[in-house]
């Protein structure tokens, strides 16, 4: 799979994840120790009305599911004798939106859609893939999204 194989408009679901209170508290205890992420009682009194996941926790689970999905695609292609281009790193992202809180017990369905695939001006043989990442909760509400970029190898001539 190479840059040329990513078609703008293509959309895949990556999998889902349920955020338990224990996991929300453990992640935030290390990375984002604000009261509404680590203390159920303080969270209940906050404007969130209960424990909510750190936005970085929501994002990290997207990355985990995305890496797992791409690994699955790579193994399938290599098994059928096709070659696989290298991916990564990412120059960054924009417009990350934590649209709605992710509460303890929520289950998010994660996905990604291709926005653009273009050749890199500065790195011969590589391209920049732009994608839109998203997650929806069990009520079908979109709670998370961002526009990301990643370096992807171009198909050899």
């Amino acid at each position, binding site marked *: 799979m190479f840059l040329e194989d990513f078609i703008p408009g293509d959309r895949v679901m990556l999998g889902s994840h349920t955020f338990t209170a224990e996991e929300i508290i453990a992640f935030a205890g290390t990375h*984002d120790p*604000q009261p*509404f992420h680590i203390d159920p009682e303080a969270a209940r009194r906050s404007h969130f009305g209960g424990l909510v996941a750190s*936005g970085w926790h929501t994002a990290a689970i997207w990355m985990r599911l995305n890496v797992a999905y791409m690994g699955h695609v790579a193994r399938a292609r290599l098994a059928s004798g096709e070659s696989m281009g290298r991916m990564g*790193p990412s*120059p960054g*992202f*924009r417009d*990350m939106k934590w*649209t709605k809180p992710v509460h303890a017990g929520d289950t998010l369905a994660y996905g990604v859609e291709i926005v653009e695939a273009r050749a890199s001006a500065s790195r011969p043989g590589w391209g920049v893939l732009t994608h839109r990442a998203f997650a929806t909760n069990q009520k079908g509400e979109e709670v998370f999204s961002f526009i990301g970029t990643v370096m992807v190898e171009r198909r050899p001539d």
Partner: protein
Amino acid sequence: MTLFFEDFPPGETAEYGDRIVSREEIIAFAARYDPQPMHLDETAAAKTLLGGLAASGWHTACLLMRMNADQMLRDSTSMGAPGIDELKWLRPVHPGDRLRVRRATLEARPSNSRPEMGLVSFLFEVLNQRGETVMTQRNTIMFGRRNGETG
């Protein structure tokens, strides 16, 4: 001292944080959230564009989050952030790198819809021990106002 919206005047800058990033934590974070070779294995990482074992960019973002939480959010009226306008991963973070934060307050405005709250926009730069910027992040954080209802 609890920090309020009014404690972040536009134009102010601050530097804080002192965080040495270990090989073990780079691998532990990546194994859980970003298990790609450049974040897990020195030999495989040497062949990638990063040129050696490097932290997941999501890990670097979490390290900034923690330094911000400790310096300005834990004892504040923070009500969270609606998102991140832009984040750039400019240089790899390698084992042993020592990180700190440079913060600039870009804009501060009271919320129109919620008078008890104000919105402050920041530009955060994560610097390494050589003074190189490894990551930048621009975003807005919501804070309670000193004379408003909070929490």
